[in-house]
């Protein structure tokens, strides 16, 4: 067997040594990455999210056959139900027309009263819809990747579905954004019980049902109570529907989110113009 030898180094021996310690080094690198993620999240974000775009594109391609099947199935199913739905929609339309008239009257009344009170209104709301291209839902994370980039959204923007709060934007790159849902362990949303305005924090726990925490001990909470955002901390505006109380036990109150996290194809990312704590974080990291 030939041995490559340079003037000072025995390459074969070095190679063998590197192979021997490669596993140990890799374990250490993995642990180091975890530590960095805990203390220097911005550094890790910059490294990892550049790869997200490429990987999410591949997932998008992988999902294509399933999507085609789903579209064909929906098309066939819809043909059978279209007449029934039309009748139902006409009824709904009539009801909505009545509601619209009521709404217009209330809006005028609200405007007059707001002017009378000199009440500061919420800033203008802009939103963008985005396609979900990858999702992660297991014991380790509850998140998704959406096809929307830096130009349209920023870290901390609120993510909604047609039914309620989904979560918030965690990291953004040029064309993709990672979103953590309200079920994720990193998600902490200030909420309140709608009927009695008791405030608390909705903490994700990587299960489908996040927990209501930091609730006063004497608070009266019942199964079915509606939970909305409280607006505290300024990340989420007040009054967004979040979910309803699923169970009340001695030490834990579980909440069922209104948003059907398992059936999200498209999401709405909303810019409320309330920057809250997020901008403070970013400013600190920029420095």
């Amino acid at each position, binding site marked *: 067997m030939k041995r490559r030898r340079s003037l000072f180094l025995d390459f074969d021996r070095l190679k063998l040594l590197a192979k021997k310690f490669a596993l140990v080094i890799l374990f250490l690198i993995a642990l180091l*990455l975890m530590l960095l993620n805990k203390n220097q999240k911005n550094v890790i974000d910059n490294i990892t999210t550049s790869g997200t775009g*490429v990987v999410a594109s591949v997932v998008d391609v992988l999902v294509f056959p*399933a999507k085609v099947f789903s579209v064909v199935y929906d098309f066939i199913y819809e043909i059978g139900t279209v007449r029934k739905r039309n009748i139902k929609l006409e009824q709904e339309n009539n009801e909505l027309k009545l509601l619209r008239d009521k709404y217009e009257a209330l809006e005028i009344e609200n405007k007059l009263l707001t002017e009378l009170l000199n009440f500061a209104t919420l800033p203008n709301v802009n939103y963008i819809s985005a396609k979900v291209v990858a999702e*992660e839902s297991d*014991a*380790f*994370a509850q998140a998704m990747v959406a096809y929307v980039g830096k130009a349209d959204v920023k870290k901390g923007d609120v993510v909604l579905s047609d039914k309620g709060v989904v979560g918030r934007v965690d990291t953004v790159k040029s064309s993709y954004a990672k979103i953590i849902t309200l079920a994720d362990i990193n998600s902490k949303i200030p909420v309140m019980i709608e009927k009695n305005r008791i405030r608390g924090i909705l903490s994700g726990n990587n299960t489908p049902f996040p927990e209501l925490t930091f609730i006063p001990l004497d608070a009266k909470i019942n199964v079915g109570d509606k939970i909305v955002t409280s607006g505290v901390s300024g990340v989420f505006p007040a009054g967004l529907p979040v979910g309803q109380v699923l169970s009340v036990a001695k030490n834990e109150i579980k909440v069922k989110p209104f948003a059907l996290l398992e059936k999200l194809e498209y999401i709405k990312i909303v810019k409320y113009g309330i920057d809250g704590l997020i901008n403070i974080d970013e400013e600190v990291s920029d420095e």
Partner: protein
Amino acid sequence: MSDNFDEKVITHFQRLLPLVTSIVFLLLAYVPINFGFFYNVRPDFGLMCIYFWMLHRPDLIGIGTIVVMGMISIAISSSVIGASLIAYLVMYVFMYNFQKFFNAKPFVVIWYGFMALSLVSILIKWLVVSVYYNMFLPLSILMLGYLIGIVVYPLIAIVLAFVQNRFIQDDGL
């Protein structure tokens, strides 16, 4: 000259197949599905691929493959950075040492082997992430995902065995 070049390209392609199939299966776990209950219990396809290839073609799956898989997980996952890499490395180390034991054994034994080794791998990952968050992650969801992984493994093994038998030739390698 041209034939020689073609052979070289084909050989390289064959050598890359374990990595390619592992990446495809790894990404499959992130495909949006509307299966209700199954939404929350996704098996770790990456572990299955490492187990299969380390068992059948350890010469084609090196530490580089594990690193690439770990990096892809880091890129797409919102979980703790490096946690998946640790799980993959654990499986790799196990299979590096036990490969000879499982070699040429009936499928049932191989299946039991996957049950045991994947359990240890995901429990180590669970422990590491729990320490990171300073709280225990939901074990029930983890175990459901693990059980589904056990059930799904034979199907994945069939697909990977097909790839191995159809596209990877011993002669060229």
